[in-house]
């Protein structure tokens, strides 16, 4: 009996002792990396991250686990917890530009520059009407909206989201007023346009392409400086030439990608950057992006940080002006756009 007790205690003691010394510095990466996506499974950010991580894991030679940790406001719970983990490059966070509002919405007390983001890209924004709508061009729509302000119902995902901001910019740039109808996501917003519950829908190309090709909705134009050639449908023109004032704040890229704690060692960031760049040159990634209507931008490092600074200031102040923020952007010294 005593022998067994002795064995038992030594086992426990060694267990504790070993585990405390087991994380000495080694070459990065030697063990699996965890990427925590702060948006729900099956969504755009999730899909991009799963695909990208699968490619990057081949390059880095370790497995990359993708998990989802949703909740809070603008993904604050996931970001909070990943930020608290070791800044050793083994913990990534899957994000998009919509996450920058976590601070002003009261989700956490950090600026976004605690991250070093890697931007895969995004899908351009498109404005569409239901298939049998009387509006043939954006001009028709604007004229109708001017004739009867607030009579045209527009769906653009949830209040304060990226699509909603596009709608607000469109209204501002054209001097019109729309009735915004919020839905809990892009899919229900588009569905509402298909069923004719709303007149207009603004979401991204990736989300609308199948409905456009299936002739369930009809695009009026791209809310993007570039025209878009949709295979199986034809060219969709940019609306910027006819409404140059849209150029002022648009486009706001979706900037889907991932980020690593900014405190991570420089060598780790470089290793990730190299793998990220290599992954983006892979034909599989390019084909996937094309099939799913994403435009790869591939920023990282200083460039990406600046880009996210811009989003942070734009999103935060836009929401502040709507009166739906919990905190003033000034509190976090976020500059006005």
């Amino acid at each position: 009996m005593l022998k067994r007790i002795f064995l038992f205690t030594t086992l426990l003691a060694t267990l504790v002792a070993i585990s405390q010394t087991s994380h000495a510095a080694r070459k990065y990466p030697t063990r699996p990396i965890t990427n925590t996506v702060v948006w729900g499974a099956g969504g755009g950010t999730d899909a991009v991250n799963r695909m990208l991580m699968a490619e990057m894991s081949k390059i880095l030679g370790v497995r990359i686990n993708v998990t989802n940790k949703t909740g809070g406001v603008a993904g604050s719970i996931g970001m909070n917890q990943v930020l608290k983990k070791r800044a050793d490059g083994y913990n990534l966070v899957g994000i998009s530009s919509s996450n920058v509002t976590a601070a002003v919405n009261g989700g956490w007390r950090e600026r976004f520059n605690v991250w070093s983001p890697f931007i895969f890209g995004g899908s351009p924004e498109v404005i569409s009407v239901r298939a049998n709508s009387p509006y043939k061009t954006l001009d028709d729509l604007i004229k109708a909206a001017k004739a009867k302000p607030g009579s045209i119902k527009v769906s653009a995902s949830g209040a304060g989201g990226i699509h909603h901001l596009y709608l607000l910019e469109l209204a501002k740039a054209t001097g019109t007023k729309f009735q915004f109808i919020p839905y809990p996501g892009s899919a229900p917003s588009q569905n509402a346009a298909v069923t004719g519950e709303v007149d207009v829908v603004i979401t991204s190309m990736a989300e609308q392409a199948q409905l456009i090709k299936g002739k369930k909705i009809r695009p009026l134009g791209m809310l993007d400086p570039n025209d878009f050639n949709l295979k199986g449908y034809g060219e969709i023109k940019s609306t910027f030439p006819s409404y140059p004032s849209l150029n002022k704040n648009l486009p706001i890229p979706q900037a889907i990608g991932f980020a690593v704690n900014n405190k991570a060692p420089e060598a780790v960031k470089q290793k990730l950057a190299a793998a990220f760049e290599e992954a983006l040159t892979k034909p599989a990634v390019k084909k996937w992006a094309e099939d799913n209507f994403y435009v790869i931008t591939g920023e990282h490092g200083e460039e990406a940080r600046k880009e996210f600074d811009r989003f942070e200031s734009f999103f935060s102040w836009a929401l502040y002006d709507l009166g739906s923020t919990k905190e003033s952007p000034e509190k976090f010294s976020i500059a006005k756009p």
Partner: protein
Amino acid sequence: MSGIFLEEQESTNKLRKADFKAALVLLCIAILILLETLKFPMTGSYGGVESQWYVSPALFPLILVSVLLASSALLLITAIKARGYRDVFNYKGWIGDFGQSINRDRWFVIIQLLLYIYIFIPSCDFFLCTANFLLAITFRFYLSNSALMLPLYATQTIAVAGLFGLRASLLDEFYFFSMEIVSDEKLIAWSDSLLAGMIAINCLTLLLFSKAEKIKIVYLLATCLLVPLILVFVFTFLLQVPMPVEYGSVSLFLQWLWYDKLGM
């Protein structure tokens, strides 16, 4: 026949008494909700949406609260009709009679669950918390040996007090309860050692003083130590669900073993 009827009558009487209390509590809650709901914006623009009475976030809760008030009142009236208001000031009716073992057992389980979830899991390694929880439950309900219970209560008190003590001495800012998990690795290491020590003491008392059959002890130890280890292993490595305290001692040890030694 009449005996069964009386018995039924008895239990219904008891239920009506409980209903009376439940209805009172429900009414209080409903009134509190109502007060909170009345603070919501009824009209006016919010979040970029033009607001009318029918868009107000208070619309649905107001409907709910009124129905809830009405149904609680109905329940209250039913209870009063059955004279359920008797014994309302008797505390035993509220928290249960401690003279009955069933009530003591209930409170034991509830307190163990509360300790497990609110105190141990947020501060220690998941395997250790689970082993501790399982030992407590199985000691009481599987062995039912009262000689083991005293050391168990003692170690649990020490563990809880020690965890708070460690927080106070190792952290800049003491907290009693936090929405987030601890991320200070030194604190985790100390907390884990403390809890591991307490688990070891409990296992020792089990091996030394329990008069149960040998096979029962083996079953118990397998349930309390082996099963959680398997669970932790399956969840971290096969399902890729990180444990609540990711830098807990056992988790770190398993990771080191799995990734660095076995190179999986």
